[in-house]
């Protein structure tokens, strides 16, 4: 988030993996294992791979539950782009429901969350805690897109 230049897609097309998943809970595991296989290959530490797995799981679950409203015919598209600096993961849904941008800004209040019926709202906060850069956008076609970046320590 702090370094917008980094967000520019690299011209290195060779290290891109694209994954299309149905919007059904359970399929986020496929994205998690794809992410960890790629991150391990790139040389990320065990802890960083775990963080990435959690962030990817939260992002894909959000896309399935909120963005695509559990409509299994709708796809979640996850694109992994590797570079020498790190790994960019884009998670896009087809936007049945557009994400309220204010959600992306707030930190959940634990007391409020414990007493509320809606236990949601932690996912985005968690992703931001775990990843080095996080960016939300709305695609021209209407879907939500979440970009997260994890840097390789050198």
């Amino acid at each position, binding site marked *: 988030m702090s370094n917008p230049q980094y967000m520019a897609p690299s011209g290195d*097309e*060779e*290290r*891109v*993996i*694209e*994954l*299309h*998943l*149905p919007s*059904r*809970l*359970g*399929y986020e*595991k*496929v994205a*998690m*294992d*794809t992410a*960890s*296989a*790629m991150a391990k*290959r790139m040389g990320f530490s065990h802890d960083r791979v775990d963080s990435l797995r959690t962030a990817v799981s939260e992002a894909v679950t959000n896309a399935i539950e909120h963005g695509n409203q559990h409509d*299994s015919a709708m796809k979640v598209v996850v694109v992994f782009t590797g570079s020498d600096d790190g790994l960019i993961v884009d998670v896009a849904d087809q936007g049945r429901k557009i994400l309220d941008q204010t959600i992306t800004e707030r930190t959940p209040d634990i007391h409020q969350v414990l007493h509320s019926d809606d236990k949601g709202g932690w996912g985005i906060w968690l992703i931001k805690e775990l990843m080095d850069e996080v960016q939300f956008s709305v695609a021209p076609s209407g879907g939500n897109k979440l970009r997260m970046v994890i840097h390789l320590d050198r």
Partner: protein
Amino acid sequence: MAQTQASIELIFPSQLGYEKIAREAIGTLARNMGFDPTRVEDLRTALSEACINAIEHGNQRQTQRRIHITCTISRNRLVLVISDEGLRFHPSQEIETATIEQKLAGLASARGMGLMLIEQLVDECGFLPSRPGQGNRFRLAMYNPPRRHGSATA
């Protein structure tokens, strides 16, 4: 995870090593479908072999060329179609003319060993008919419970 039919797509560069990422993603799917661990391993091996063929042969290791995996799953069946860009067509007739003993003795090309292995590991496999310019399309299927017929023909 797979009450009705669903499909997943995975697209990656023609570079050796990426088949390991595909293997993780599809292995997770098969495990979640309830395939037993030995069969998940068989499927992972078969998929690796098919991807290596597509990378080395179909796409001639040109990294900018893509390998495309479509995975269709229903309650008791997992079908994978591995497609390349068909820079070279796979000499699939070779697998019928040479035995593994001939290959090991150096009397026939070592190429095609992967296909022989795949035949032993999955319930169904073979190239799909493809038009010129369409690339090679290799299909493999696994059933749960298994349907091992025709595997003795190799």
